[in-house]
């Protein structure tokens, strides 16, 4: 309960005093200015609660905008002849890495404010996120899109509450 107001005593002293109990609930999330004489009303709603944990993934600067061949070189991985191209080899590595990330099979992509913890900072983990994202969703099972991820520097995912316990602590 919140917002307990005490009413003024009535003039009739024989009547018992009245107390107005007001329950605001989540009304506090709203703000309202007016309406004044003009009749114009300013409405506002803000809920700072986040359901789950936001996790930020940032591509290391050296990897940004690079072609698959260069990324493999930066990762110090030599060409494997069982793959026909560097793209194919890097995609396989990304898929392997994505499978190991303790995230749910799908997460919402949210706007980043730069404050979210960066739990994984290695390039392959970050690529496992960036290459499997649309503007709104990350899907583990999605085929990596290396071309689509080339211009992405970072992305933030929202991990739902039940999955948060599986997340490792962010490195300090």
């Amino acid at each position, binding site marked *: 309960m919140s917002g307990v107001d005490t009413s003024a005593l009535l003039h009739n002293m024989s009547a018992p005093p009245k107390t107005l109990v007001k329950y605001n609930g989540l009304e506090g999330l709203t703000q309202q200015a007016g309406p004044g004489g003009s009749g114009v009303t300013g409405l506002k709603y803000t809920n700072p609660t986040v*359901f789950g944990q936001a996790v930020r993934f940032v591509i290391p600067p050296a990897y940004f905008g690079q072609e698959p061949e260069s990324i493999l070189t930066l990762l110090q991985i030599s060409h494997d002849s069982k793959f026909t191209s560097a793209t194919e080899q890097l995609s396989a590595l990304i898929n392997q890495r994505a499978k190991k990330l303790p995230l749910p*099979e799908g997460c919402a992509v949210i706007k980043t404010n730069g404050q979210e913890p960066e739990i994984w900072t290695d390039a392959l983990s970050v690529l496992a996120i960036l290459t499997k994202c649309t503007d709104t969703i990350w899907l583990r*099972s999605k085929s990596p899109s290396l071309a689509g991820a080339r211009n992405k520097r970072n992305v933030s995912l929202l991990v739902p509450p039940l999955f948060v316990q599986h997340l490792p602590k962010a490195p300090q």
Partner: protein
Amino acid sequence: MMKSSTSTLPAPSSLFDPLGVIGFSSIEAPLLAALATDSPLLLIGPHGAAKSLLLNKIAEALNLDFRHYNASLLNFDDLVGFPLPSSDGTLQYVKTPAAIWGAGAVIFDEISRCRPDIQNKLFPIIHERKVQGLPLVGLQYRWAAMNPPSKDEDDSGYLGSEPLDTALADRFPFVIDMPAWRMFTKEQQLAVIQSKDQAIEPVHAQRLVQAIARTKALLAQTSEALQYGMASYVQTMFALLSQAGIELSPRRCAMLYRSCLSVNAAALAIAPKASVTDTTLLALRSSLPQRALGIAISEVKLLSAHKEAMRLIQISPDDPLKAILCETDPVEKIRLAVAAHSLPKSEFSRVVADALSQLPLGSREAAIVHLFETGAVGRLNAAVASQAGDVYKDIAVAPQFSETIHATHGRYRTWNRVKSLLAGLNPKEARDHLQANTIATLFAQKKLATPEDAEAASNHFVQTDKALRFS
């Protein structure tokens, strides 16, 4: 269509063309099925579509003692004759030549133009071959014909042709639309135009008799071979059509099942290589009473339900997909689909997208929260998952909006209801925050036009959230 001279026609491939009624090969199988099973048959079509001619010719070919009544002019005395008290105190009917007693077939033409009291009296004749409680011994076939009924919302029907009483329409296992003139081949159209009235040659009449006998014989075999598949088909159709807003009675389901079997038997009697899929669709089309009620059925919905039901015949009865598709409540459908981990991604995505599209505001948001909180969103294809993600982020992540409106605006009243709804929520409960965010987001997106919309969305959220979390 008009009678035709059989001598001008090519070698008869159709059963009915040689009888002098042209262009009915597309409905031959259900007609034959109705004849082989002695089932009541209702023909619907515009004037001049040869409904009465077809029935008269069939009766003639089968050498039936038949009565042709114009139901719009019919009096009950015409049917039964005149009642006279007998010496034992019971009523006897003075049988006139036109009375129904002793008839092998009856045709109630213009049944949709008949007075309601007469329609009620036709009911037991069609349903149980009885009149005034007395059995009509020897009455094998009960047929009726009507023009498409008129409807208030359009003028495609016939003035005076009223929708049939629902219970009466539901007594006709076969409700067949007559083929339209435009569906005739040029040769058929010419044959109809040049037709002459001629007696039916015995060989052609015999051909029909043999086809009926073949259908009866094949019915036992097809029933054995198709009984499970057709029962499953009808069960699925019932659910899918209901979801599409086409309601069938349980009686109609039993009729549809029998019709599917008999039309398949008839199709095999006509063409040994008839496709079960196509024939079953024909049986379905010929077994829905809605046309007689003046209710249009979307062809797209019908075809898609048929395709789905046929596909499900192939799968195991234990396959969760069947239970999911037969479920009419979209929330329950989502719950079942999320629990069925064996569902392939494409099926899961289709079921979820379909169910989400049926959910009202508030309910849809709660279902999407469930998909994310269970991780099931990862089993969706990218297109459906992206749409879900778009909704979820607004609910789960610190939403905020601001807006300036005039206090006289209707939106201001809605806002006040939103505020009062939020005031009833508990700040310490996480679910209440999700509910608050849902209402606020929907308001910000201008999806809540009235205070009642806000209240409904709030209630839907709570109901769906509970149904999915605690089931």
